[in-house]
């Protein structure tokens, strides 16, 4: 540890710098000078990124990095629920956290830089950079979380910064609706996550005395002095997991571990927009494009994948949960890819493409096991490459939108000459996502396909291969329609290239997208047994490339010729086309459930019940009191003589009793 002592000891600065920057921007700078807010916010993230690179460099080259040791760089007690159940916030340094820290800070820094140009003159400029810093802090806090509570805390914070950024243009009803939808859908998913955490916390605490000594001996090596039930180190210990897996819930014969992992996966699926909780992500494109690039493509949405990876030993110990991960991932990837072919909004196509790629990462995790962990590395690899090329796609799309002021691809066209840099970088990213050698996507997809095949998941492999083809199809579709042919809109005719401050991040991301595939990734990031498979499997490489090229040729066939073959095709498909175009009516289904069932059959009757039955009961008792009083008051005539008569009568009655008693 000595060789990277300085940066290691100060690793907490990586998330702390954006937080301080956020506070400074929000409290002092933003009201004074918006221009300055952008500069300070950007510089802060660049400093943070520099720290992250330094840490990555030091960590991966140190013995600890080679052995994938998880180390705690900094920790402090944050909240003591009760004795023996404490939350220690801290900074966890292990391969995936270092990886994610580098990715998040890189993409965030480039997006900040890009936004200085993109958001120029926007009225929400100051707020935008503040929120972006808040997001970067939360995401980094999530990545370095050493325990599940810190993970949840930052999980919610990235959710709220996403909410704020989607709703940046709060006067636009669509943006408001999208931001609410994003928050509420992920909140619903987080409910599962929270319940999962509570269950894990409870049983973890319950068995803590039994297993803690064994775990603690390894923990000390990693810099943990005060092990707690919420710590990942404890929750991913094989003995603890075996114990949890042995408890049967007598509910569909599932084990406690499976139940809690399924609940945790619900949270992950919500954040990573897995089917059927994917509905918020396409709508989230209402936010500014840099936000889509950073949050809804490169970083926040991979938090779900990261969570599954973080708890991978637990998922692996419960085979059922892992299988669920694989199939949900596979289904989402093909489902979203199919929808992606039919969408006309460039950002929405990219959003569905993100869904599809996230499904890819999930399925890769799902096919891995502790004994055969290739999928784990593959998933992280794809997360890594995807972050760059998808951010690039969004930023390039942003440059296009910036130039033509529309999101509809059919109003663009012929932009290749007018926006040469944007066109070139977009093409690099398209090739990368389609998995064409030698761009980054090729290598990570290849690993995913190899892991699915070698794990024996043939259905998943088939789906993944199909998706590779469809991905190439829809990506080249928007590429051709946007950049080739004649300009179809007025604005497209007068488009001109974006300023340098926007182009610089594009170029840098393009370089990364083209090259990062050559990193020998599984040397740095892996779990469990050493990986047996290395390098490129030629059979898989050929079939994947064939699938991708098929997609590209289909795109050329449909979208480059003079005759509109695509429209003919969609007429031919008729209802099926409409079904896909309407995203399988999932949104309508949700609206039906929430409005017609939850609001109409629970909320409204409850509100009625409260006003009429419960409160009616209160008013009824008041009415009874008043009415009885109203009747009884006739006894009170106000005439002293009547009262006296009662008095005399009462006295006589008492005398009678006394007399009777005396006898």
């Amino acid at each position, binding site marked *: 540890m000595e060789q990277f002592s300085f940066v290691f000891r100060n690793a907490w600065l990586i998330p702390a710098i954006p937080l301080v920057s956020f506070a400074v921007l929000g409290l002092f700078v933003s009201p004074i000078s918006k221009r300055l807010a952008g500069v300070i916010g950007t510089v802060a993230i660049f400093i943070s990124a520099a720290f992250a690179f330094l840490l990555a460099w030091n960590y991966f080259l140190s013995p600890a990095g080679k052995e994938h040791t998880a180390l705690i760089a900094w920790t402090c007690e944050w909240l003591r629920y009760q004795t023996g159940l404490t939350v220690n916030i801290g900074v966890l340094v292990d391969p995936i956290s270092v990886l994610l820290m580098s990715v998040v800070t890189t993409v965030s820094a480039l997006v900040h830089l890009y936004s200085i140009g993109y958001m120029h003159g926007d009225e929400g400029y100051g707020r935008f950079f503040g929120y972006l810093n808040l997001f970067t802090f939360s995401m980094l806090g999530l990545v370095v979380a050493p325990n599940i509570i810190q993970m949840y805390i930052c999980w919610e914070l990235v959710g709220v910064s996403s909410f704020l950024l989607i709703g940046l243009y709060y006067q636009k009803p669509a943006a408001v609706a999208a931001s609410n939808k994003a928050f509420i859908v992920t909140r619903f998913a987080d409910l599962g996550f929270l319940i999962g955490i509570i269950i894990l916390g409870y049983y973890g605490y319950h068995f803590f005395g039994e297993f803690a000594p064994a775990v603690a001996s390894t923990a000390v090596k990693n810099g943990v002095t005060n092990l707690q039930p919420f710590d990942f180190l404890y929750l991913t210990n094989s003995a603890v997991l075996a114990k949890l897996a042995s408890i049967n819930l007598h509910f569909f014969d599932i084990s406690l571990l499976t139940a809690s992992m399924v609940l945790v996966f619900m949270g992950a699926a919500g954040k990573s927009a897995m089917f059927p909780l994917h509905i918020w992500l396409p709508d989230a494109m209402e936010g500014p494009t840099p936000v889509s690039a950073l949050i809804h493509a490169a970083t926040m949405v991979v938090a779900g994948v990261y969570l599954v990876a973080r708890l991978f030993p637990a998922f692996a110990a419960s085979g059922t949960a892992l299988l669920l991960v694989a199939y949900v991932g596979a289904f989402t990837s093909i489902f979203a890819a199919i929808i992606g072919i039919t969408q006309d909004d460039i950002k929405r196509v990219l959003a569905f493409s993100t869904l599809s790629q996230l499904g890819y990462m999930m399925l890769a995790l799902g096919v891995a096991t502790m004994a055969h962990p290739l999928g784990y590395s593959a998933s992280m690899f794809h997360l890594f490459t995807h972050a760059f090329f998808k951010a690039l796609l969004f930023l390039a799309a942003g440059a296009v939108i910036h130039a033509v002021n529309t999101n509809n691809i059919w109003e663009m066209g012929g932009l290749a000459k007018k926006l040469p840099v944007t066109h070139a970088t977009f093409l690099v990213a398209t090739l990368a996502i389609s998995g064409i050698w030698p761009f980054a996507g090729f290598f990570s997809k290849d690993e995913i396909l190899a892991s699915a095949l070698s794990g024996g998941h043939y259905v998943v492999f088939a789906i993944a291969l199909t998706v590779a083809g469809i991905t190439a199809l829809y990506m080249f579709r928007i590429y051709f329609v946007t950049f080739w042919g004649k300009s179809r809109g007025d604005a497209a005719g007068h488009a001109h290239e974006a300023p340098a401050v926007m182009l610089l991040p594009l170029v840098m991301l393009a370089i990364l997208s083209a090259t990062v595939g050559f990193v020998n990734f599984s040397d740095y990031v892996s779990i469990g047994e050493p990986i047996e498979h290395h390098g490129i499997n030629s059979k898989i490489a050929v079939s994947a490339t064939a699938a991708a090229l098929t997609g590209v040729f289909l795109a050329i066939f449909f979208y480059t010729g003079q005759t509109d073959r695509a429209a003919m095709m969609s007429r031919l498909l008729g209802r099926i086309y409409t079904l896909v175009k309407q995203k399988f009516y999932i949104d309508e289904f949700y609206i039906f459930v929430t409005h017609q069932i939850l609001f109409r059959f629970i909320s409204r009757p409850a509100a009625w019940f409260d006003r009429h039955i419960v409160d009616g009961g209160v008013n009824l008792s008041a009415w009874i009191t008043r009415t009885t009083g109203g009747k009884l008051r006739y006894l009170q005539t106000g005439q002293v*003589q009547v009262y006296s008569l009662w008095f*005399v009568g009462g006295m006589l009655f008492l005398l009678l009793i006394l007399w009777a008693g005396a006898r």
Partner: protein
Amino acid sequence: MIESLSLHKPHIEHWLVLSAILFAIGLYGLLSRRNAIGILMSIELMLNSAVLNLAAFNRFVAPASVDGQIMALFVIAVAAAEAVVAMAIFVAIFRYRRIVDVNRMDLMKD
């Protein structure tokens, strides 16, 4: 006959019976009269029956002390004060509303 009566000294029972009769007359008047002045007179009657009782008990039960007489004088004084206040109220009501009927003095009702 008058001689025989004068020879026959009245005992405590006689005084008590007289007092009870006075009290009963007063009570009847209190309960039945409508006229405020009448009610006031009935109350005076009842108070006087009480005074009579006090005097009688003093004379026959504890002749050595004067407690009963003091009480009697006290009641007479209070009764006078009470009659003055009550009469003042009734006169005031009569001035404003020209009534002495207690059943119609119901402004505070409702």
